Structure formats: structure tokens, C-alpha cells
């Protein structure tokens, strides 16, 4: 099967790499399927360019080109994946050299693609889920006059996301990083004629920018201490090139970048508002793929974090905070999309927590990322389907009893719901429970960490069960609370067309079976091992069976509480006042207020005082000079009477004065 020509180009051959550490350098390959690997990025990028350049002329067929480009990228990704799967496990890290990118003095950077289990996992996830969501969007956006532009942006996103995960250097990764940020901005503000949506897009862009600054600073530090930005150099035993302090700084800056992109505390505020975008966008970008880029970055830079335990601890703390934060917010939201967004935030908190646990957690973080990509995208598409059938209603208090009217949506959503709850044998059980278990493993012998983070993860599972069940019951069970003629317009829920239901069905199948299939015999963990390294499983502070039982117990408690409150008893159409915590959670635990008070308002005060200083000092100085010149002039003008006699008198007086002076001086 090894028909491709492998060229070992002076780099460390993958075969000699020990599998107990991250593989920093791969084999440089060319030929065979690897020569078409650039098509992964090329296809969607070309499609986006065509759709944007042709404009209205492509309106009739543009969406199908978008679907085709995404599907094409998936096929290329699948072929690459199969070819790599053929290779022995320790030869699965490959570099495809594309050419010299930057050659400036001592700094040399090649553009290239890193094909390894980690990047290919992302490639498959992004292109597969992406293609399904493209198909879904064909129907979902049917009545939108700008459907072609929508598909152009979606393709642009897929291309940028693939650049991000396939890059072989931090700088190229940054190109993709910015690209997905741009696509996210364009798609959140897709209906930008509606002012709040445009504002939401701007908010997401600005919050992301803060994170991007972190990545830039991290790259600056890498350049200063390593003199390079490619993964091969930087991630090859970083402790040998830089002190632990430097690596901690780099790690924290990378974490800042991850927080911005993945909506982690304290940069999480944009994700809820990002739901302003069309629902397929929320499913693809703000649930399945882009927001997980931060997790990718942390896992990819694992070598840096492992050499900086302090940064690693901060990663775990951020993940723990966010997973609780998102879960609490999710309990109070009545907007179905915002509740799902809070859930996304919380689930990514789990992934970040796992990624901060070191090699033990990397594979579980990525595993959960993949299963989450399926079930959350499926649920978002389900939410889109519900909105489609309910005249774009998003208030869950206005749903209820939809199970009978939207059977496919109901069933597929249920699969996603059971998956995120972690009910065996659905996907979430295998991925999330592993993270909870890993959180209970003491790191560096620190028992307190195991107890604290394990408990937080366990608690999060219970809250997750509560709010996801609440969402599910409020939407599909209980009595109908639809708007009637009296409220404005009567609603007639109906099932969505096949183009929308099929992607949901496929994602639901993934939500059911993916976890089991991938975890059989540690298949997925083994597949990622060339990148994440092999980690000996430590012993959790509690026995494994007890942890599983505890997790299931809190999940069932959460589910039953939600069942009693939202399926059995009546859900008021007008939200009740609620407790102080509910009220706080409704406004995202005051995160916007805090941001406003801490950042926005001081910033505005600063700009206002700068404007004032500009007017008063700079302008004042210039204008004051002009005014005093004019004043002096008008004062002197009075002396010019125009009478000859006055001038003669002045001359005489002057002469006399002069004479007196001369006499006085001489005497």
C-alpha cells in the first residue's frame, strides 16, 4: 500500500520518535494523495471566491457549488485519512511542504501542512459536519435573497478552519485563526440590516481580537526565545530552549487566545450574542468547530504547557470556571439558541479542563470535542428546525408539546439530548465521563486538585442534565404554549423538509453510536497517541465504578428535577421573577455589566478625556496663539490714526526720548 514516495528531508524521521512525548517533527512527504492535500483548503476557498466574485449571477446554483466544495474537501480529507491509517502508528505524523513563505535574514519559515491524527480528526469533523450543515442550509436559507453570499461565507469559514488545523507553524495557524474570526463575524452579522445583529457581530469580533492579541504575544515570545514559529522547532522539547517562566508566559498567552476563540471565562460574553447569526452558523461555527479551536491550540501546544505546570493549572481553573458558568447561565435562558450557546460554553469548559490535565486529558478533550461536535450541531440544527416550523420563534416558553408535530426533529433532538447527558450508551457517556474521571486523577500527587476539579466536573454534569432536560421538555413535552391569534399570529408547527431532516438524522446517528465505536478498545485514544503521547493512566481518588455511578446519579437527579418542573407542571408563558441566581443567570451572571464597568466605560472615559485634552491643550494652544496675535494687532492698530500730525508727534517724541537717552548715557 505504500506507493507514495516518502522523502525524509533532514527532519527527524517519525520512526525514531518516542511515543511517550509529543511528536514535534514529522516526516516530509510528497506525492500520491498528499499532493492533492492542499485541495482541502483550495476547494472551499475557490468556491467562496467564485460565489463572491460572480455575485447575483450565481444566485440560482451558488448554494450547490458551496455544498459540492465542502463535500469535495471531505472526500479529500477521507482519502488522506485512509492513507495515513495504512501507515504504522509511529509514522503517522507527516509534513507536506508547500514552499518557502518567509525568508528574512536569520528567520526562515516554510508554509506547509501538518497531517497527523490530530489535524485529520479536525479535518474530518469540520468537513463532515460542515457538509451536512451546508446541505441543511440549502433548505433553511431558501427564502433568503442572499443565500449565495451565505454559502460563500460558509465556504470561506471551512477553508479558514482547515488552514487553522492543517498549519505546520503558529504563524500559518494564525492566518486560519483570523480567517475563522472573519467568517464568524460575517456570518453573525449576516442579517446586518438588523442593528442588534450587527452589534453582536462587532462584539464577537472585538472579544476575539483580545484573544488574538494573546496569540500574537505568544508568537513574539516564541520568536524571541526559539527564533522560529514552526511546530517542529518550538514544540521539540521547549524546556531546553526557554526557561519555565518564559514558557509559562507563552502558555498563558496561548490560553488567552484560546479563551477568546472558545468563549472561555473571562472572554465568554460574545458567544450568547453570536446566536444572532442564522442557526446553521450557530451549529457549525459556534458549536461544532470554530469555538473548539482554542482546545485544538492548547492540545497542539501541549509540549509548552507540559513544561509550564503553572500555566497548565490556570488552564484547568479556567475550564472549571467556564463549565460551571455556562451551565448556570444555561439553566435560566429562555431563548433556545442562547441556552444551547451556554451549553456549548460549558462543554468547551470540559474540554479545556481536560486539555489542562496534560497528556492524560488531551485525547479525552479531543474525543469530547468530536462527539460534542456531532450532538451539539445536531441539537442546533434541531433548534433551527423548530424555529423553521414556528415562524422563527426562539422563546422556549412559547414552545411545548412539539413532539407530536415534528417527529423527526423530536427523535433526533432526543438523541443529542441523551448524548450530552451522558446516558450510556450514547456518545457523551464515553467522552464526558472520561473527562470527569480524568479530573479525579491527582496531578503531580496533588490530591486537592483531584477533589476540587473532579467535584466541579461532576457537579457540572448534574447541572448540564438539568438545563438540557429543561430545554428538551420545554420544547417538545408538556402542554402547548404557542402564540395564538391573540398574541399576534397563530403558529402551525410542521416538520422541516428532507434536506433539513437528513443532516439531523445523520448527526443523531453519530450522537448515538460515535462514542461507543470510537472508544472500543481505546481506538480513538490510540489513534491520537502519535500526537498526544502515551500517558499512563493514573488512579483516580475514587474507584472508577463509583465515579460512573455518581455521575449517572447526578445526571438522573438533574433530569428528574427538570421533568417535574418543566414537563409535569405548567410552564408559565411569562417568566416568573425567580431567585437572585436565576435573575443573574438570565443576564449572563452580569458578565456584560462587569465588562462595561471594568473595560468599556473606563475606555470611553479615557477617549472622552483624550478628546477633551485635544480640544483644550493642543487646539487651545494653536488657537490661543492666533487669538493673542489678533489681539495684539488690534491693540497696535489704535496707534495708527491716519493723521499725519500724530505721526509727526510720534516722531518728535521719539527723537526727544532718544536725545535724552543719549545725553543721560554720555553724562
Amino acid at each position: 500500500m505504500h506507493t507514495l514516495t516518502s522523502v525524509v528531508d533532514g527532519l527527524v524521521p517519525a520512526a525514531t520518535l518516542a511515543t511517550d512525548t509529543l511528536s514535534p517533527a514529522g516526516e516530509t512527504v510528497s506525492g500520491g494523495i498528499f499532493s492533492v492535500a492542499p485541495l482541502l483548503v483550495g476547494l472551499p476557498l475557490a468556491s467562496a471566491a467564485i460565489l463572491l466574485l460572480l455575485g447575483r449571477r450565481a444566485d440560482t446554483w451558488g448554494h450547490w457549488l458551496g455544498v459540492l466544495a465542502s463535500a469535495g474537501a471531505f472526500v479529500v480529507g477521507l482519502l488522506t485519512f485512509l492513507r495515513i491509517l495504512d501507515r504504522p502508528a509511529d509514522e503517522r505524523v507527516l509534513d507536506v511542504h508547500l514552499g518557502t513563505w518567509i525568508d528574512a535574514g536569520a528567520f526562515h519559515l516554510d508554509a506547509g501542512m501538518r497531517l497527523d491524527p490530530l489535524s485529520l480528526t479536525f479535518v474530518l469533523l469540520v468537513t463532515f459536519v460542515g457538509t451536512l450543515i451546508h446541505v441543511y442550509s440549502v433548505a433553511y436559507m431558501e427564502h433568503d435573497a442572499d443565500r449565495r453570499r451565505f454559502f460563500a461565507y460558509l465556504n470561506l469559514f471551512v477553508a479558514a478552519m482547515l488552514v487553522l488545523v492543517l498549519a505546520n507553524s503558529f504563524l500559518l495557524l494564525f492566518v486560519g485563526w483570523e480567517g475563522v474570526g472573519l467568517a464568524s463575524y460575517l456570518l453573525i452579522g449576516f442579517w446586518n440590516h438588523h442593528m442588534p445583529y450587527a452589534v453582536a457581530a462587532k462584539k464577537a469580533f472585538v472579544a476575539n481580537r483580545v484573544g488574538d492579541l494573546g496569540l500574537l504575544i505568544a508568537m513574539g515570545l516564541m520568536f524571541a526565545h526559539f527564533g522560529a514559529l514552526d511546530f517542529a522547532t518550538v514544540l521539540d522539547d521547549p524546556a531546553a530552549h526557554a526557561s519555565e517562566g518564559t514558557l509559562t508566559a507563552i502558555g498563558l498567552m496561548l490560553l488567552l487566545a484560546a479563551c477568546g476563540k472558545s468563549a472561555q471565562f473571562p472572554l465568554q460574553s460574545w458567544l450568547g450574542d453570536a446566536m444572532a447569526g442564522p442557526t446553521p452558523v450557530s451549529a457549525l461555527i459556534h458549536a461544532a468547530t470554530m469555538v473548539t479551536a482554542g482546545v485544538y491550540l492548547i492540545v497542539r501546544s501541549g509540549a509548552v504547557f507540559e513544561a509550564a505546570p503553572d500555566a497548565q493549572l490556570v488552564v484547568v481553573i479556567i475550564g472549571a470556571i467556564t463549565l460551571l458558568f455556562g451551565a448556570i447561565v444555561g439553566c435560566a435562558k429562555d431563548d433556545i439558541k442562547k441556552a444551547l450557546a451556554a451549553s456549548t460554553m460549558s462543554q468547551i469548559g470540559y474540554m479545556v479542563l481536560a486539555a489542562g490535565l496534560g497528556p492524560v486529558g488531551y485525547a479525552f478533550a479531543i474525543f469530547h470535542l468530536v462527539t460534542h461536535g456531532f450532538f451539539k450541531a445536531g441539537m442546533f440544527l434541531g433548534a433551527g428546525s423548530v424555529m423553521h416550523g414556528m415562524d422563527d420563534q426562539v422563546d422556549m416558553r412559547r414552545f411545548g408539546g412539539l413532539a407530536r408535530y415534528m417527529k423527526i426533529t423530536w427523535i433526533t433532538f432526543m438523541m443529542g439530548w441523551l448524548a450530552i447527558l451522558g446516558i450510556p450508551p450514547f456518545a457523551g457517556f464515553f467522552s464526558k465521563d472520561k473527562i470527569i474521571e480524568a479530573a479525579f486523577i491527582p496531578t503531580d500527587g496533588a490530591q486537592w486538585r483531584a477533589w476540587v476539579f473532579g467535584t466541579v466536573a461532576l457537579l457540572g454534569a448534574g447541572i448540564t442534565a438539568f438545563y438540557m432536560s429543561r430545554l428538551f421538555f420545554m420544547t417538545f413535552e408538556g402542554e402547548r404554549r404557542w402564540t395564538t391569534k391573540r398574541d399576534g399570529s397563530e403558529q402551525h408547527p410542521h416538520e422541516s423538509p428532507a434536506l433539513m431532516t437528513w443532516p439531523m438524522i445523520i448527526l443523531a446517528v453519530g450522537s448515538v453510536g460515535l462514542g461507543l465505536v470510537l472508544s472500543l478498545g481505546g481506538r480513538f485514544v490510540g489513534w491520537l497517541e502519535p500526537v498526544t503521547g502515551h500517558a499512563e493512566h493514573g488512579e483516580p481518588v475514587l474507584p472508577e465504578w463509583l465515579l460512573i455511578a455518581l455521575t449517572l446519579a447526578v445526571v438522573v437527579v438533574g433530569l428528574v428535577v427538570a421533568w417535574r418542573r418543566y414537563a409535569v407542571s405548567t410552564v408559565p408563558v411569562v417568566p416568573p421573577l425567580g431567585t437572585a441566581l436565576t435573575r443573574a443567570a438570565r443576564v449572563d451572571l452580569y458578565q456584560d455589566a462587569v465588562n462595561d464597568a471594568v473595560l468599556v466605560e473606563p475606555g470611553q472615559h479615557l477617549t472622552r478625556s483624550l478628546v477633551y485634552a485635544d480640544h483644550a491643550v493642543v487646539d487651545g494652544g494653536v488657537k490661543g496663539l492666533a487669538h493673542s496675535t489678533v489681539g495684539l494687532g488690534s491693540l497696535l492698530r489704535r496707534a495708527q490714526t491716519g493723521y499725519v500730525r500724530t505721526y509727526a508727534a510720534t516722531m518728535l517724541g521719539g527723537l526727544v526720548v532718544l536725545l535724552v537717552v543719549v545725553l543721560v548715557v554720555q553724562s
Partner: protein
Amino acid sequence: MTLTHYLVLSGILFSVGAATVLLRRNAIIAFMGVELMLNATNLSLVTFSRMHGELTGQVLAFFVMVVAAAEVVVGLAIIVAIFRTRRSASIDDVNLLKS
């Protein structure tokens, strides 16, 4: 009668001339004041010439007379020209310098 008296007389004449120039409005009269000042200067020059026993002062007085004669010619011509255009010999009417 000492030479000091001539100097005092010269000072008085100069002051009268200056006052005439500054106070009178009629251009002709003012012009006469100028002449008076010139002549007062001439008187001082001659007096000092005598005082020092030198001829420099007297030579200078001749120069002043020549210049004065030329000045009278030009000055009177200007006054006549102004009178012709403005029907007035008052120097206060000649205030074009004032905007």
C-alpha cells in the same frame, strides 16, 4: 548778549515751529512751521560754528537752506495737488493711510 541767547532763541523758534506743525490743520501753516524749525536749526548751526571758530556749521547751514528750498518746491506742489483734488488744504483730510 552772549552766544547762549542765540541758542535759547533757536530752541524757542524750534519749539514754536514744532507746535505749529503738530497743532495747526492748515497745510500751508504747518509747512511754515517746518520752515521755522529748519531755520531754528540753521541758527544753532551758525551759533555753534561761531562758538568753535569753525566753518563746518555755516557750510552745513547752506546745505540745509538748499534742501529747504527744494523741499518747499516739492511740498508746495503736493499741497497744491491735494487742494486741487480735495478742495481743502486741511491735513486732517489726508487720512488715506487709515483704513
